[in-house]
């Protein structure tokens, strides 16, 4: 090792004596390449420190023998420019603009560790990109991130607890006195802090100063919402404290880069509230204007004869709400109304375009143009949730086009849709677009088509009852993008049951085809996990794939027909499925659950739970699938709730969507 290597090394360690320093400077002055060499090794020195510290953060906490001494008051990251002011100025929140100097930094705390917090619980969480679990330590400047299904609880030395919801990123800086929140949702139970050394939270839009309370902070799309459960906090747009407001228990405040901070009650909408109904501010839905961020339309009980188009412009933190209130869900009835879709006339009772909206607690009926009128139609819509709604006797129940994305249909009862004039072409749910989730619904008795038809690029169907359609239960069709290898459809924990004596196609059950053509077709994987499939007609083919989509079946019950699959080139593989002993079994499904009967509690009465002695009890396996974000995940053990919703099961995994009958 050369003399200059030793000089550089000593400089990096802060151990260079006067003579060594003189020699190093002479060497640096001699040649630009020397300076570059020195700086490169300096880069490597810093990178070594960061990388090895990050690795240590993932090791068990007790393995750490010694912590380095901290300095008094330092902030590790860029956006913490003015943290000193905020931290030192509780009660005063000094400002540069007024020319006041920040208070002196607090004295060093020799016992304070470098690792300023520990993870007490975590799933799908990383520190600086490395997976962590309970017991991991978090260092100064470390970035803790939870995945799209993750969660983490962080305990700070003073007892403060930070709970990170899915999709949240925080960085702990300022010697443990500053928590920077990227996007996500953070619930904080802050232990009492000295008034001159509060805990601060920072987002791009907000500074929050806390001396001990419980609060939650959420950030998305350049908006921050701070809500307080106990105590009070100070919130300003930034560390200067200008325009500071106090937020007390039961209140919340919205911070954006443009709007003034306005404190509201937690129960109050962050936009405008429109009360609709007899005796309310708005007698009809037609009188309500288009809706902006945080706007809430509260529809009181009654029957509304209306069909309207609505533009909504919500945000992730301030979605638009259109909801029924006050008991019995209000009915939006299209009987006799024009829903032709011609010109400005909507083709639905509620035709929504825009993003971030929730439609909840409403009933719809009689959307009819004898072709394709829908109760709810989404046009160029994104991040829309339809929840807890009842839809009946429309041409289509819910429809949306291929330009939509991020649709959720949750806990809805949708049935008896269809029109004889378009027999085979009207469906309870007929959706396209990027991603959709259908969860906890009862979708049934489609009169002239299928219960669920979809050209969505990706689809997750979880814990539903799907049954009684006249022309097959489920169809996945092609559209631009659906031929991709990751255009997956995943069905977990559903009951799918056909009815006897259909007037439509008697063989159709779940099928994929290329109806829309145009180079579409379906690629990807149809992953069937823990479903109960019941055919009322032995002619039924449970799964028919006409294109390249491959099928994986794990832990399902296929009961009532021997025709398990009619396959395109994608083929089928799987394990631990119950199939009738007489079934024609595809080569990929050799690993079967034995038994002559699945052992339903009372199939005639529609009770598909498993009776004692069923071969399906305890015969299931843990299955993994690729979620909508492309990540490998363990499938939940769930089935349909009663009458709606999703029921989770505990205990040994059973094959099918239901556990044991009591």
């Amino acid at each position, binding site marked *: 090792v050369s003399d200059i290597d030793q000089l550089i090394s000593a400089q990096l360690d802060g151990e260079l004596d006067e003579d060594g320093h003189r020699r190093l*400077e002479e060497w640096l002055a001699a040649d630009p390449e020397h300076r570059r060499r020195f700086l490169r090794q300096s880069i490597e020195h810093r990178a*070594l420190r960061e990388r*090895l510290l990050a690795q240590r953060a993932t090791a068990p906490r007790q393995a750490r023998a010694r912590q380095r001494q901290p300095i008094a008051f330092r*902030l590790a990251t*860029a956006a913490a*420019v003015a943290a000193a002011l905020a931290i030192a100025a509780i009660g005063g929140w000094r400002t540069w603009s007024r020319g006041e100097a920040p208070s002196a930094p607090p004295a060093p705390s020799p016992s304070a560790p470098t690792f300023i917090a520990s993870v007490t619980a975590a799933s799908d969480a990383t520190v600086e990109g490395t997976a962590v679990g309970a017991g991991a330590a978090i260092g100064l400047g470390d970035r803790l991130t939870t995945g799209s299904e993750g969660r983490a609880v962080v305990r700070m030395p003073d007892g403060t607890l930070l709970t990170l919801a899915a999709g949240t990123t925080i960085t702990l800086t300022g010697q443990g006195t500053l928590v920077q929140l990227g996007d996500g949702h953070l619930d904080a139970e802050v232990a009492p802090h000295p008034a001159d050394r509060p805990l601060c939270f920072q987002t791009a839009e907000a500074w929050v100063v806390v001396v001990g309370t419980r609060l939650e902070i959420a950030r998305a799309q350049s908006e921050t919402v701070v809500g307080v459960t106990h105590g009070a906090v100070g919130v300003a747009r930034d560390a200067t404290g200008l325009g500071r407001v106090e937020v007390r228990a039961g209140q919340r405040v919205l911070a954006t880069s443009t709007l003034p901070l306005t404190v509201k009650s937690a129960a109050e909408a962050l936009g405008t509230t429109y009360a609709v109904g007899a005796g309310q501010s708005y007698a009809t839905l037609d009188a309500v204007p288009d809706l902006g961020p945080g706007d809430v339309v509260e529809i009181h009980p009654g029957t509304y004869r209306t069909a309207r188009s609505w533009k909504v412009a919500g945000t992730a933190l301030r979605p638009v709400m259109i909801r029924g209130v006050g008991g019995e869900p209000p009915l939006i009835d299209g009987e006799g109304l024009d829903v032709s879709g011609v010109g400005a006339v909507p083709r639905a009772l509620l035709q929504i375009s825009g993003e971030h909206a929730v439609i909840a607690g409403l009933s719809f009926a009689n959307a009819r143009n004898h072709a394709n009128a829908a109760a709810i139609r989404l046009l160029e819509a994104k991040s829309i949730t339809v929840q807890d709604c009842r839809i009946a006797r429309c041409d289509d129940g819910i429809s949306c086009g291929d330009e939509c994305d991020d649709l959720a249909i949750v806990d809805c009862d949708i049935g008896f849709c269809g029109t004889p004039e378009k027999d085979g072409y009207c469906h309870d749910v007929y959706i396209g677009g990027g991603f959709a989730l259908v969860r906890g619904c009862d979708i049934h008795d489609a009169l002239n088509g299928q219960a669920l038809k979809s050209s969505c690029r990706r689809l997750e169907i979880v814990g539903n009852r799907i049954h009684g359609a006249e022309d097959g239960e489920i169809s996945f069709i092609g559209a631009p993008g659906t031929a991709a290898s990751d255009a997956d459809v995943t069905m977990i924990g559903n009951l799918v049951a056909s009815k006897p004596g259909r007037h439509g196609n008697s063989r159709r059950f779940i099928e994929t085809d290329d109806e829309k053509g145009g180079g579409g077709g379906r690629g990807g994987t149809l992953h069937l996990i823990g479903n109960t499939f019941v055919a009322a007609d032995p002619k039924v083919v449970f799964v028919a794939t006409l294109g390249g989509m491959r099928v994986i079946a794990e832990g399902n019950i296929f009961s009532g027909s021997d025709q398990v699959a009619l396959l395109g080139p994608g083929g089928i593989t799987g394990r631990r499925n119950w199939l009738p002993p007489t079934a024609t079994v595809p080569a990929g499904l050799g690993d079967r659950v034995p038994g002559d009967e699945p052992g339903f509690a009372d199939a005639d009465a529609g009770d598909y739970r498993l009776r004692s002695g069923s071969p399906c009890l305890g015969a299931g396996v843990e299955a993994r699938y690729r979620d909508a974000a492309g990540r490998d995940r363990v499938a939940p053990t769930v089935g349909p709730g009663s009458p709606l919703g999703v029921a989770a099961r505990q205990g040994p995994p059973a094959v099918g969507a239901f556990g044991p009958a009591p």
Partner: protein
Amino acid sequence: MRDDDQERFTRLWTQAQPAIAGYVGALAPDAHAADDLVQDIAVALLRKFPEYDPQRPFIAWAMGIAKMQLLTERRDRARAATRFRRETVESLAEAWQELLPEVDERRLALGDCLKRVTGRGRELLELRYQLALEPQEIAERLGLASGAVRVALARVRAALHECIERRLHGAGP
């Protein structure tokens, strides 16, 4: 400062901060002192931001102020974060800006090369960087002479540097 200026500053500073912190870290071996200095620089930049000419690259403007802050701090404090002379501070600032494009690549290469460090070399790095032990403390823990530890650290750093250079210039390993 107006709200939009504040937002613009935050955005620019967020982009520039790693570069400034790297430069300061090279000149100030004490990581804590370096962090303090970066914070002081940030405050100085914020105060001077109304003077910033948006036609100029922010990083160059920020480097100029960082350099001044280093020199001021060196003059004003008894225990300065850096002992380098003005000429060295300035020449290193110039060299640093030349090196900025390669920082990320170098850090990535370090990750690969670090995997090849095993045995005593790895142990030394972990004691030095993970546990933040000084060379003297490492020597006590391992029962070695402190000089031997210093030489060994210099050796493993030099080896890592050579490995990184080889990777960046396509000569393996």
